[in-house]
C-alpha cells in the first residue's frame, strides 16, 4: 500500500482497525520484557538503583523530540503536499507528545533530586525541553481555539515548523553549553558508553515506548477522522430545511 493510497481516510481507517490489536499486543509484551529487564538490571556504581529511572526517562525524552519530528513532517504534508491525513496526524500526535515531554521532565526531576541535589536547574537542556512542553500546549490550545479545521491546520503547521528549530537545540544543548545535564551516552560517535547490562533494557524500553506511541497515534488518528465526519454530518443536519407547521 503506497502513501497515496493511504491518503484515503476510509482506507486508513480500515488498515488502522486491522493492525491496532496486533500492535497493542506486541507493545504490551515488549513493555513487560523491558520492565522485567529494568527491574533485574544491576545498580550503577555511582547512581545506585536510581539508574532504573533512566529506563523510563530516556525513552520519554527521545519520544518528546521524535513526536515533534513526526508533527513537523506532517506539517510539511499539510502545507506543501496538502495530504488529507497530514493535519489529522499532527493534531492527533500533539497530546501524546505533550504527555511524553511531561514525563521526561518529571522523571528527570525525580532523578535529579537524589543525584544532583536539586529537582530543577535552569540549564540549557532542561530549559529547552520545558520550552518544548509549552510549545506542545500552545499547539493544542491553537487547534482548540480555531473552529475551522483547515485554518487551524495551516496555522498549526507553520507554528510546528518554526518550533522544530528547538529540536536540534535540545539535542546539542549539552555540547554547545556547559550544562548540569550529562552529554549523550547512547547515541554518540564511537558507539555507546553504556554497559550492556544497562544498554539492553534501555533499548528494549525505547522500542516498547516507540511502539506505544505508534499504537496510540493510530488510535487517536482514527478518532480524529471520525470526529471530522461527525462535524460534517452535524453541519449537514444544521443545513437541513426545517418543516414549518
Amino acid at each position, binding site marked *: 500500500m503506497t502513501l497515496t493510497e493511504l491518503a484515503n481516510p*476510509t482506507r486508513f*481507517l*480500515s488498515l488502522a*482497525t486491522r493492525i491496532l490489536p496486533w500492535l497493542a499486543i506486541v507493545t504490551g509484551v515488549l513493555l513487560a520484557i523491558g520492565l522485567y529487564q529494568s*527491574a*533485574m538490571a544491576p*545498580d550503577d556504581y555511582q547512581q*545506585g*538503583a*536510581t539508574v*532504573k*529511572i533512566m529506563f*523510563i*526517562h530516556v525513552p*520519554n525524552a527521545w519520544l518528546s523530540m521524535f513526536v515533534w519530528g513526526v508533527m513537523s513532517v506532517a506539517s510539511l504534508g499539510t502545507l506543501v503536499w496538502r495530504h488529507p491525513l497530514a493535519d489529522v496526524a499532527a493534531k492527533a500526535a500533539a*497530546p*501524546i507528545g505533550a*504527555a511524553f515531554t*511531561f*514525563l521526561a521532565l*518529571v*522523571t528527570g526531576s*525525580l*532523578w535529579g*533530586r*537524589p543525584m544532583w541535589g536539586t529537582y530543577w536547574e535552569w540549564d540549557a537542556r532542561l530549559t529547552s525541553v520545558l520550552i518544548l512542553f509549552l510549545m506542545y500546549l500552545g499547539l493544542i490550545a491553537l487547534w482548540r481555539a480555531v473552529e475551522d479545521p483547515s485554518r487551524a491546520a495551516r496555522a498549526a503547521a507553520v507554528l510546528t515548523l518554526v518550533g522544530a528549530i528547538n529540536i536540534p537545540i535540545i539535542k546539542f544543548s549539552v555540547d554547545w553549553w556547559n550544562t548540569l545535564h550529562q552529554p549523550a551516552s547512547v547515541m554518540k560517535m564511537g558507539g555507546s558508553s553504556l554497559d550492556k547490562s544497562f544498554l539492553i533494557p534501555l533499548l528494549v524500553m525505547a522500542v516498547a515506548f516507540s511502539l*506505544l506511541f505508534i499504537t*496510540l497515534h493510530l*488510535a*487517536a488518528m*482514527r*478518532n480524529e477522522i*471520525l*470526529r471530522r*465526519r*461527525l462535524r*460534517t*454530518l*452535524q453541519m*449537514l*443536519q444544521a443545513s*437541513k430545511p426545517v418543516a414549518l407547521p
Partner: protein
Amino acid sequence: MALGPYASFIVTSYALVAAVVLILIVWIAIDHRRVRARLHELESSGVARRSGRGATDLT
C-alpha cells in the same frame, strides 16, 4: 530487588509513567466510543454522508 535509599523517587517515577500512559489509553478509548456513538445517533436520525456510506464503514 532492593531499591536503596532513593526507593521513593524510583517508585514515584514508575507510578507516574504508568498513570499517565493509562490516562492516555483510557482517554483515547473513551473518545472513540463517544464519537462513534454520536455518529450512530446522527445516522439513525436520517443524516447521511453524501457518498451514502456509513461514517464508520471501513470499505
